[in-house]
């Protein structure tokens, strides 16, 4: 007697997905996983285009993390052309990016994960939406939306355009900062900083309450795994630095420049999904690993700013070092928001920000690899460019692919503690979806075809459908 539960699609993640949970005759878990059935094929679309256009075209891969693609492409082109952008360009790119991180994480915590935190996992699905969260906690919602909007405005002013930025180019950035804009930016960052002392304890309070209400979150939903993140000047860094891999205990096992990624990161096909999973290949062994906010702090263990480092110490006290507790992803995002605000403040104080912003670029033909830490984790762009400046091949590795193995293990665990032997189908579905959303998978980036299915849960026994649930 076999039972299969399917959750289809998981709502409130980017792209579309369904989840299967296979139980054996005794009701024990056999396997579980996230099935991704969309295909985008962006890597093929890029072939034959002018390399110069990559920052603008690849930003369109996603409306959620466009700035990550925009800047990963610029880093790859800088490397392909063998140029180093001037310091002012790097600062402005980083500032644009910090705005993006503030915007993206605010949305992720408050809108995408908010219902789980504010309303709990067992709330009626009808309430588990943004209107429900806002009604439950209007003051927090107001502050969260204000933070999100500040992030968006910074990203827009530096990036030159609302959602999909355009200013960063191969060799630097296509404008010089004006005094007037600097003043406005400073004002926005100061506004964001004022919100932090109110937002941070509120989010932390919700998280601790969720842990209290669902002890399995802290006790069982723990996925020890390797981690990968970017380190620069011995701290967390988003758009420049080396990649560092750590093992389950947190020991550094490899550090490499992104141009060497193919030696360490191995892509492989999963038979039941269109998404390729990526594992770390070290000493002849393959290791599942995690990327994203929690992995970044597990790897670097330092932000280099006052408030973020203080909050990180608290994170370590509650979640351990390295932390492998899935739900702490939310806390990690909160700390990155704090850091992003402080770091933006630092950047705006740098004298170098007033300098020249661009060096000339000519593609002699060759390969260019670049990366950034996207909100959800390490994002790599790899282009082969000919001597006319035309892209001949492209490879993109996105965060969700790298988190894929860990996401599947998290689903197994929440199924184990929250699904099996529990008659409450609603709580079951909420729990599994929650553990997926902690990784905030961005399936539209991670995949390549077409088609979606209506949302349904299918329960099968002995291969026969005994029940179908729909939301």
């Amino acid at each position, binding site marked *: 007697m076999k039972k299969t539960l399917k959750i289809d699609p998981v*709502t409130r993640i980017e792209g579309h997905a369904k989840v299967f949970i296979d139980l054996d005759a005794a009701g024990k878990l056999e396997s579980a996983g996230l099935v991704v059935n969309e295909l985008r094929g962006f890597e093929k679309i890029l072939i034959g285009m002018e390399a110069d256009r990559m920052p603008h075209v690849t930003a369109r891969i996603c409306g959620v993390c466009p700035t990550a693609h925009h800047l990963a492409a610029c880093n790859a082109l800088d490397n392909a052309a063998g140029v180093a952008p001037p310091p002012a360009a790097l600062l402005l790119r980083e500032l644009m990016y910090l705005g993006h991180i503030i915007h993206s994480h605010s949305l992720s915590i408050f809108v995408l994960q908010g219902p789980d935190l504010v309303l709990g996992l067992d709330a009626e699905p009808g309430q588990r939406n*943004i*209107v429900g969260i*806002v009604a439950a906690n*209007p003051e927090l919602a*107001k502050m969260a*939306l204000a933070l999100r909007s500040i992030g968006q405005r910074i990203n827009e002013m530096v990036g030159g355009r609302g*959602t999909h930025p355009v200013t960063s180019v191969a060799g630097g950035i296509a404008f010089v900062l004006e005094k007037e804009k600097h003043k406005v930016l400073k004002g926005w960052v100061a506004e964001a900083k004022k919100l932090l002392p109110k937002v941070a304890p509120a989010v932390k309070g919700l998280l601790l309450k969720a842990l209290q209400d669902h002890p399995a979150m802290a006790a069982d939903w723990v996925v020890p795994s390797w981690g990968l993140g970017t380190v620069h000047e011995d701290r967390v860094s988003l758009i420049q630095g080396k990649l560092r891999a750590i093992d389950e205990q947190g020991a550094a096992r490899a550090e490499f420049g992104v141009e060497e990624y193919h030696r360490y990161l191995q892509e492989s096909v999963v038979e039941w999904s269109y998404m390729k999973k990526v594992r770390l290949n070290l000493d002849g062994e393959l290791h599942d690993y995690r990327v994203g906010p929690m992995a970044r702090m597990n790897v670097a263990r330092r932000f280099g700013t006052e408030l973020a480092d203080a909050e990180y110490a608290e994170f370590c006290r509650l979640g351990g070092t390295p932390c492998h507790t899935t739900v702490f992803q939310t806390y990690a995002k909160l700390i990155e928001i704090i850091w992003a605000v402080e770091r933006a403040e630092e950047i705006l104080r740098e004298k170098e920000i007033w300098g020249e912003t661009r060096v000339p670029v000519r593609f002699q033909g060759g390969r260019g690899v670049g990366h950034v830490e996207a909100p959800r984790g390490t994002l790599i762009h790899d282009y082969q460019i000919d001597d006319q400046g035309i892209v001949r091949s492209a490879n993109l590795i996105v965060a969700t692919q790298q988190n894929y193995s860990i996401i599947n293990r998290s689903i197994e665990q929440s199924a184990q503690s929250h699904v099996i032997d529990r008659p409450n189908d609603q709580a079951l579905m909420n729990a599994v979806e929650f553990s997926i959303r902690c990784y905030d998978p961005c399936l539209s980036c991670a995949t390549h075809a077409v088609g979606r299915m209506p949302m349904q849960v299918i329960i099968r026994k002995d291969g026969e459908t005994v029940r179908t649930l729909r939301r």
Partner: protein
Amino acid sequence: MQLPDRRTVVVCIGNELIADDAAGYEVYQRLAPCPARLEYLGVGGIDLLALLDGESDLVVVDAVQLGAPPGTLHVLPWRDIPASGTGVSAHDVGVREAIEIGRILYPERMPDRVTLVGIEGRCFNMTRKFMTAEVTKAIDGAVATVRKLVQGGAHGQGG
């Protein structure tokens, strides 16, 4: 010169690059000059709130999928605007959700009357040039409808 009508704001929503979703953008292009404040949003959702400034009337123009033949024009008062998924918007925040959130957070800026002018679309997975012929034909009608809503008469009786 006629002063702009401060009582009404018209917000046109839709991705200008995507087939039938561009309907809102096309209406926006053809509405100017408009006696009411005219705004455009690429993607709907919560960003709608930032555009509201205490007007008494809001007219939202967007492509919708309500199951009618493509090109059908829907003029829906608030009570008939369905929950999420009617317009194309991220994260389950449709016109109804956005306004409900706004009424909780920023009641002073929310309109008293909300009308959705929805253009039924069919094709949302192709580029702009694949706009359905019926939708293309419906644009002028939508523009005329919005003008009528803006010029007095506004939302009719009990909207």
